[in-house]
Every structure is written in C-alpha cells, then in structure tokens.
C-alpha cells in the first residue's frame, strides 16, 4: 500500500498558500514539482563535487564524471536501453527532436520523401520537421485525429503509412487530450515498411513504465523537468546502429577524437552528440528523480493519475455547459475542457485567484485546436502527489467560475 500523503510531504513547494488559498497544483503536464531528494542531489553536487566532466584528472572532476556517467546508466535502465551509449543528454524533448531532425533528417531525407506525423503533435514535434522538410524537399503528412474524443484515426494508417514515408514521429500521450496512443502497434506497422520511428515521451516518461524494446521505436525523447527532475535536462534515446550512422549535431569540445585545423574526427554516440560542457547538475538531479519515481513504481503512478483524471472528467461531465476533450476511457492523467461562453484564460485567471493552478491556451497544439474549431482549452493535469480532495476543490472552483460569468 502506497502512502501517497507521505510522498506529497516530500515536495516542499506544495505546502503553501496562493492568493490566500491552499495551493492546488494542476499544471503537471507543463512542469512537475521536485521532491527534496532531487533538490538535495543538486545542492550536494554543488557543495561537494562540482567540477567539469570527462577532461579532468583531479578528484572533483573524477567524482563529477562518475556521477554524470552513473546517471546515463540509470536512464538506460529506466527505459530498457541495451546500453548506456544509446543515451544522449539534451536540454529537453524539444532539443532531442531537433537533433534527430537536423542530424538524421539531413542525412536520410530527400525530395519526394514523406515525414508522417499526427494531428495531435505538440509544436515541438511539428516545427523541427517543417524546418528539415524545407531543407531537404521532403513533405509532411498527418494522421488525423477523430475529433473531440481525440483518438488517432487508425483506419487511415494504411493509406498514409507508405514506403515513401521515411520517418514516422508521434506522441505517446497527448498533452492536450490525454490520449494514450498505441505506440507499439504504430512502431510495428512502421517497421514492416522499413520506416524509422520517433516516440515523443514527454508526457509518458515518469508517468508509466517505458520499455523501448517493447515499444520497438528507433528514437525516443523526453524531458527531466516534467518527471520530478531539474529544468534544462532531457534525454534522447536512439538505437546504437542508427546513432552511429548519424553526423554530429553541434560541434565543439567533448565530441571529438582529433581536431586538425581543417579536419576533425568524431567520437561515437553518445559523446558525438554532446558538444561542450553539459548540464552536469541537471543530469545528476535527473538520476535522483528516476530513483525517486521507481521507488514508487511507475505502474502505481499511472494508476493513481488515471483515477484522478477519470474522477475529474466524470465530475466535469456532470456540470452543465462543459465541453470535454480527449477519450472517455483509458485517458492519461489530464483533463482538457471548455466552459460555455467563458474563455479558457478567464477560467485560469479566476482559478488562480482561488489557489488552483491550471493551464489555459492552445497548449502548443495550434493545428489541433484549429481542427477542433477552438482557440484554446483549460487543462488540469495531475501527478502522484495530487489528491481526490484537490479535484473536489477544483470542481467547486469551476462551479464558482460558471456562476461568476453567469454561464
């Protein structure tokens, strides 16, 4: 039996009043809060071990390097990578996708090729592909979303996933709809045609168990800050043979074997893709976050988040004048909604004054919003430290908002 209240007490930030009300933090899909274990790992590193990694010969540099590489091993275990050489540290999900687009894409895409995305992608899984498509002459195609229920229209997959597609990139969990996509099935379909796959795990890492072997993708990306880790650190996993065939992304120190005035030879992955001094403290903080999450168990976290989201969805569905987005069942830990005649930003401003932190806007999903015929939604997104009582408070606040705006 997990003591959720005890886990919540590990997050000092949650124990505060906002505008005179107890904080209800429901913006976890944007960024999660950090447990003491992660905050302590950061201060311990800066108080005891801080030095540059890989190049030093002194004690502190050795310690920093050992901690840095231990985190790479930890990440490899976290997602069942074959080897830690497949783990590249990035600034976050966005940089991971840009790295693949610029490095893999520039080498492998040519005019006439297609890049298949889905209509529910975050801007960070659209814009990098537009940039490389423009450079290479490749074209973008989109797997449609069914509508408010927010499922991928898999009946269109045969028609769209053809041999002209060189890369299929899709999100594991939609940040605005809460849809959990059948990633293993999508990867299997792609693999049969020799299509390379990238899974955006920004919303799923740290929320459910991840196994890149079981998923069967070629690339997987996620961020540290959404899963109790520090900001500014993320992970790109790629199959070793795919990574080793990719040209460097950024040039600089750390990524070279030999440098001549006119010619350089590069290290293999992962170092080939990690030019310059990395975010050492971020990497060490991420290690602490992964340990923390796995002590709880990601399957337990998913169950807890899903229960809260289902409860919130059902409660909202009982109110009049509420439009709900995303699947009715099997959703991940978030709920997107609109109130009749009340703009999402007004909902969020009033909720904030009652201590409830929501997100309102297009959630970096502008094309999807256009397709659904809306400009924005309000979103409540949950993590394991949130409680049913907080959902009750949120519903009470939503009722108050409806009354306030007379809808």
């Amino acid at each position: 039996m997990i003591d959720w209240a005890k886990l919540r007490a590990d997050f000092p930030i949650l124990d505060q009043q906002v505008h005179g009300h107890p904080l209800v933090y429901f913006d976890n899909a944007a960024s999660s809060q950090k447990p003491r274990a992660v905050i302590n790992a950061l201060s311990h590193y800066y108080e005891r071990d801080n030095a540059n990694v890989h190049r030093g010969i002194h004690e502190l540099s050795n310690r920093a390097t050992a901690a840095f590489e231990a985190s790479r091993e930890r990440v490899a275990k976290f997602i069942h990578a074959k080897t830690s050489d497949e783990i590249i540290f990035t600034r976050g999900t966005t940089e991971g996708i840009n790295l693949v687009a610029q490095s893999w894409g520039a080498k492998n895409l040519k005019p006439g090729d297609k890049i298949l995305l889905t209509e529910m992608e975050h801007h960070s899984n659209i814009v990098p592909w537009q940039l490389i498509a423009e450079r290479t002459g490749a074209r973008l195609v989109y797997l449609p979303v069914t509508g408010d229920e927010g499922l991928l229209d898999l009946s269109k997959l045969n028609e769209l996933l053809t041999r002209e597609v060189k890369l299929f990139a899709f999100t594991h969990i939609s940040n605005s709809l809460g849809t959990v996509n059948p990633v293993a099935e999508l990867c299997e379909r792609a693999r049969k045609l020799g299509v390379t796959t990238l899974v955006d795990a920004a919303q799923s890492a740290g929320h459910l168990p991840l196994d890149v072997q079981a998923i069967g993708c070629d690339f997987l990306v996620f961020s540290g800050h959404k899963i109790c880790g520090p900001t500014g650190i993320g992970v790109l996993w790629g199959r070793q043979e795919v990574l080793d065939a990719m040209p460097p992304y950024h040039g600089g120190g750390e990524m070279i074997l030999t440098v001549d005035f006119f010619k350089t030879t590069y290290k293999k992955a992962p170092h080939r893709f990690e030019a310059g001094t990395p975010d050492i403290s971020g990497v060490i903080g991420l290690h602490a976050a992964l340990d923390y999450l796995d002590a709880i168990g990601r399957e337990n976290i998913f169950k807890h988040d899903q229960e809260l989201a289902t409860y919130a969805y059902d409660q909202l569905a009982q109110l009049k004048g509420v439009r709900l987005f995303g699947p009715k069942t099997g959703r991940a830990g978030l709920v997107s909604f609109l109130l009749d005649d009340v703009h999402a930003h007004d909902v969020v401003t009033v909720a904030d004054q009652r201590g409830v932190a929501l997100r309102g806007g297009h959630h970096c999903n502008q094309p999807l919003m256009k397709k659904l015929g809306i400009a924005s939604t309000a979103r409540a997104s949950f993590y394991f430290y949130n409680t049913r009582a907080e959902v009750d408070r949120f519903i009470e606040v939503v009722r108050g908002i409806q009354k306030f705006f007379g809808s």
Partner: protein
Amino acid sequence: MSDDLDELYQQVILDHCKGPRNFRVLEGANRKGEGYNPLCGDNYTVFLKMNGDVVEDATFQGSGCCISKASASLLTDTIKGKTKAEVKALFAKVHDMITTGAVSDEGVGKLAVFAGVHKFPARVKCAILSWHAVIAAVDGENQPVSTE
C-alpha cells in the same frame, strides 16, 4: 470572489464581454486593423470609417477572452469622433494605466475600468490587443499586427 478579481472583472467589463457593442463588420469601412496574440490565439479585426483624420465609426469582429472582448467593445465606443492624434494620445494613457494601475488626471473615460488589469501581468496583453488593431487601422496599415 477576491477583491482583485472584482477589480479585474468589473461589472462594466462583464457586461461588455457578454454583450459586446459594435460587434459587427462595418459597412463602408475604409480602414482595417488586426490584432493577434500568438500566446492564446486571440484575434480581433477592427473596422474604421475615417473622414480625413477623424474616426466616424468603429466596429470589431473576432474572438478572445472576456478582458480582450470588453476592451475592444469599450474602445470602439470611445474612439468615435476622435482624431487620429487623440486616439494615439488616449492609447498612451490607457497603456500607462493598464501597466501601472495609475489613472491619469487627463481622464480615460469609461476605459478606467481596466485599471485593475495591472495586478494580473499575464492579462495585460489581453486588454491591449484590440488597441494594436486600432492603431494599425488609424495609421492606415492593412497588415496583421502581433502583440509580441
């Protein structure tokens, strides 16, 4: 509701957001300006009928939050009969008021209801969005203008 909220969503603002005035395309308009906020997707088009330097009529269309809609509604009411220079001088005062909360002695008329917005930094853009459209229109620009 808290005092700050009551100050933000004053009765006049709620009234104008629920029933916006001048909310139509203007027949015979000779100026048009657009305001777009890429953060939230809010988008307004302001239509003006100008006689020389004077705004004879003003209307708007578009969608957005309560603050931005009420602002467009009140502002299209307020600028009727004003010259281009007067509209710009009014914008300077309103901008100052919305960002600092200080209501100018010179008076901003009914637009004083937006003074409470300064306590909500994330919403300042909402109150100013349609102003960008108006300024673009009186300046005779027909390009969309961004608030960023």
